[in-house]
């Protein structure tokens, strides 16, 4: 694990001539750019999402890279989804799903998980209106 990343960045640089699209969160630009995540937030709930989940579910996160294989890459980042429910989010976090490990209550409390779910269901709620 420790050493794979450098290789990968070099490899991606080699196979892409044009600057890669950022939209799906799985592409990086070249050997010296692009794995840097946007760690910013506009609300307390979003900040909590960034702190607890962003490492895997924002740009170039493990979750984003794998989800891009299973759905349209432009919705591989959870914050781009408009079909998430609080129940699905809670189950995925507590039971794990695919390669995602279970998240303990010490790492993310039930109350924090509810706030993260509120942030991630914003699009779905907007769509329902």
């Amino acid at each position, binding site marked *: *694990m420790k050493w*794979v*990343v450098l290789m*990968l960045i070099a490899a991606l640089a080699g*196979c892409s001539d044009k600057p890669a699209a950022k939209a799906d969160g799985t592409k990086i630009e070249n050997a010296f750019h692009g794995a840097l995540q946007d760690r910013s937030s506009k609300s307390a709930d979003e900040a909590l999402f960034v702190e607890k989940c962003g*490492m895997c579910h924002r740009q170039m996160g493990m979750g984003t890279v794998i989800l891009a294989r299973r759905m349209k890459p432009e919705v591989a980042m959870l914050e781009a989804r408009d079909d998430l429910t609080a129940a699905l989010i809670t189950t995925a976090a507590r039971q794990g799903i695919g390669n995602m490990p279970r998240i*303990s209550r010490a790492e993310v409390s039930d109350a924090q998980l509810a706030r993260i779910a509120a942030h991630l269901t914003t699009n779905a709620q907007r769509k329902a209106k």
Partner: protein
Amino acid sequence: MTINPAAYRAFAAAIGKDNVMLNDDDRIAYSDHFAADEAKHQPGAAIAPASAEEVRAVVRIANQYQVPLWPISRGKNFGYGGAAPVMKGSVILDLSRMKKIEVDAENGTVLVEPGVGFFDLYDYLQARKIPLWLSVPGNSWGSVAGNALDRGVGYTSYGDHAARICGLEVVLPDGDLVRTGMGAMAGNPSWQLYKPGFGPSWDSLFCQSNFGIVTKLGLWLMPEPESVQGYDFEFDKIDDLGWAIDTIMPLRREGVIQQSPSIGNWLRSAAVMTTRQQWTKDKGPLDEKVVTAIREKFKIGWWSVQVRFYGPAEITEASLRVLKKAFDGKPVLSMKPAKWTRGDPPEGSPVTGVPVSFPLANANWHGGRGGHVGYSPVLPPKGDLAMDQFKRTYDLYQKYGMDYHASFAMGERSLTNVNQILYDKDNADMMGRVDAMFRALVADASAHHYGEYRTHIDYMDLVAGSYDFNNHALRRLNERVKDALDPNGVIAPGKSGIWPKALRGDRS
């Protein structure tokens, strides 16, 4: 094993009942999600104190009721057992709620609690615009302190994380609290600045051990350099491994190269960015046609290595010339320069300390629920020995039908042959082969008197057993220390093959 319910009541009274987690979901949350049989190392419960004082209270109760605790910092030690204990039924002591960070920006040091992850520390430094860089591992989700204590590695010249530890605060197995190095003097301002202290130095005794619970860890951080320069090398042939190592190692020994270049094979990129089914439907080891297709797609050699220099431009440019000269006239497939200078936009990769998690995607190589286990023997840094090690290991991968996935990391005086054996945990046949191959690999290393630097909870006794000088004298010493510090055997029984007296019969 059964734990006296009175112990849980006492834990709850000490740290709050919400922080004592006893249900089935809690037990599976701390199991090894890379394991085919998660029950094998399933903990009995988890407790999560928020301070060193609460840890001390927990440890005193554990002694009273003979409760084996398995301390974790954040529990992301994937490939080595994750959060799970060696001994089934142990109670996880989860320190992930302890997240204090104290940075000394001027001196380039940090004092972290165990719950601080690499992303947390990165965010902390960025928010305050402190020009210090992290050295991150490929899985930066984990704990800064936990990774250093398990002797994890990163990409920069600060990549030997255990070597950058400077001062610890430790709760001992009897609940006493100690600070090491200069921290042993109350109020001493050099705790994070001077490593040895006075008399014996204790920091390394708490690495990969079960002699205490680290509640604070001092670490040196790299001041942001003026420039980063280097080359990405690709090598076409399998046999290029030997001379490539022999070309780089003299510069590593002299200190011209200060990070640990890691030369690895074509599967490193393919396993992260793609799945196996995208290349072949064939179940056996990948054939030359597939290897060629992967190499063409990613434009890589059989082997690849990145070398980087950090510092003032005058120095990195001169170093680059020395490196280039060393490779003059040698059959390199390609050699691509890389450069970042202060003032450029953030370059955004682990070589400049940006935390990442995407390398973990290689657990999905076989599709479905996957994982990996690390096999990493240490050998002298010589090309012919590396070639020999490669050939023997490669033959075992072929024999057991697994995909070769390995690298050789060049330390100042050693090579660490890091293998990540990638598997599908739902394929029982494959899991049987992985276990058999792992044992064959350890036996092969032992036959050459090579030892591993780190291992999975399943294999701690196996690997500890391979350190056999004078009929396992080191293990006897470790266990004498264990018995002296932890007579009730409450801290991490079995960690690194070190068992407390009462449980030595459990050694596998």
